[in-house]
């Protein structure tokens, strides 16, 4: 390629990054501009004193604290349910499947990742209705149903990133453990997974983000406008995306809309905090496993 061609490709690649970063900056700036005025303690705790709300001594009725707690619990539950299953399935795909199962299962996982979230929500809703009718009337749309539906939604990301992370471990690393007398299982646990930690974490972060933002699934499977703090897995709960959707579609004043934007900023912060926590856990686990005697 001639010099101009090289420069054009370089320019386009820089432009690609600039468009993404610019869009992100525009989004955050717009949210800050619209929601900054509402970003205060009363947005979160309403008229309830902060300490009372934090220690669960009094319910918060006019703030987003219950929705924050609901979203946080939902993400932790969904990711906790999805990560072990996704990791195991990813390891199976990378290490134990034959050409046929790899092709068929791979296609099915890709298909699963393409299912719109509203369909997953509808599926979760149908299942719980069926169980309500045929098993127990106590089974209703609730936090656990939303968490499991979301786990189902994010499973393909975790499976595929785990699979690709393990499959792309260099042959030199892959064969090292075997040559030192490792069984295939020892090689997977002690060589392949530690080597793929960072890439596997990418899938988990993607899953956290998806769990935090998805509204369609939780709308049908358990989220309600007013439920208070999430006290039970088997009851409805409040969640930030649902609150944002609810406010933006039914606001009665500019101040109320600003609260919705404030809630968006809080949701971004929750995601950032969870990403950071996931990265720190990964770093700590990696250190303990690979560097501590």
């Amino acid at each position, binding site marked *: 390629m001639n010099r101009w061609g090289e420069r054009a490709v370089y320019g386009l690649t820089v432009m690609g990054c600039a468009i993404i970063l610019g869009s992100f900056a525009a989004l955050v700036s717009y949210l800050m501009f619209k929601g900054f005025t509402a970003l205060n303690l009363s947005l979160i705790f309403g008229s309830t004193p902060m300490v009372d709300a934090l220690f669960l001594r009094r319910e918060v009725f006019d703030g987003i604290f219950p929705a924050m707690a609901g979203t946080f619990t939902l993400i932790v539950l969904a990711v906790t349910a999805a990560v072990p299953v996704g990791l195991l399935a990813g390891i199976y795909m990378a290490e134990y499947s034959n050409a046929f199962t790899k092709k068929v299962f791979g296609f099915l996982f890709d298909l699963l990742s393409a299912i719109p979230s509203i369909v997953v929500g509808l599926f979760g809703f149908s299942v719980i209705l069926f169980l309500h009718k045929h098993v127990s009337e106590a089974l209703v749309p609730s936090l656990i149903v939303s968490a499991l539906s979301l786990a189902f939604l994010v499973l393909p990301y975790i499976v595929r990133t785990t699979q690709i992370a393990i499959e792309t471990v260099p042959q030199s690393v892959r064969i090292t453990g075997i040559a*030192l007398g490792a069984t295939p299982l020892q090689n997977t646990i002690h060589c392949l997974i530690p080597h793929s930690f960072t890439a596997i974490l990418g899938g988990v972060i993607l899953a956290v983000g998806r769990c935090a933002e998805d509204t369609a699934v939780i709308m049908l499977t358990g989220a309600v406008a007013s439920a208070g703090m999430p006290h039970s897995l088997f009851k409805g709960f409040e969640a930030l995306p649902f609150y944002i959707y609810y406010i933006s579609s039914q606001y009665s004043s500019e101040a109320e809309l600003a609260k919705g934007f404030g809630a968006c900023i809080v949701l971004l912060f929750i995601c950032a905090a969870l990403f950071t926590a996931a990265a720190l856990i990964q770093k700590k686990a990696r250190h303990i496993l690979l560097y501590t005697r």
Partner: protein
Amino acid sequence: MNCSKIKTSNLDFFYKDHQVLSQVNATIPENAITGIVGHSGIGKSTFLSLFNRLWENIPGAAIKGKVLIRFSGDREQGFCDINAPDFSALELRRAVGMVFQTPNPLPMSIFKNVSFPLKLAGINRKKEVNELVKRAIKACGLWPEVKERLDKRASILSGGQQQRLCMARALVMNPEILLLDEPTSSLDPASEEKIEQLMVDLKKKCTLVMVSHNQDQVKRICDHVIELGI
């Protein structure tokens, strides 16, 4: 010449439809350095992988013929066919260490790299592990260079140090045979000299089999040469 440690008899190796080795009959003496030579693509590395059954991890690979090894100590039973159905590949790989062309420390600390084979073999007693690791690193002349930074990443070491670390890792299980696949080809002359000296020292307690493209190196340190493809 020392007595034989490894014998191959009518050995053929196939990769899918392609025959890589044909009717190889070779004898490798004990406590000596044997050089495997031959032109590129003749199957030198493949030949080496037959002594620790690493070839079994290559999809589509198959062998015919026999590879016989005479183990000593607790394992002494005369010559054993290492491809016999009841012969454990894991036990074999713990008795036959291997060092690759490019230094391949695992992404973990210096100490953990060397203690890794012990962990795989279920040797967990801290005092014993510390002792064995120290002995292996000392045997490779690396102790003064790493004793203060055993918990640091192995990748911070130079190429030559990494290769000696890999040799220490291969030696920690006290193997009877050490396979080396062009162990100095990616190193500078000073590191190459250190590794060669180390190999000469090691042959007192170990049988070394080395693939090399370097004719001068083979002349310098090998006691016995097997030329493939003649």
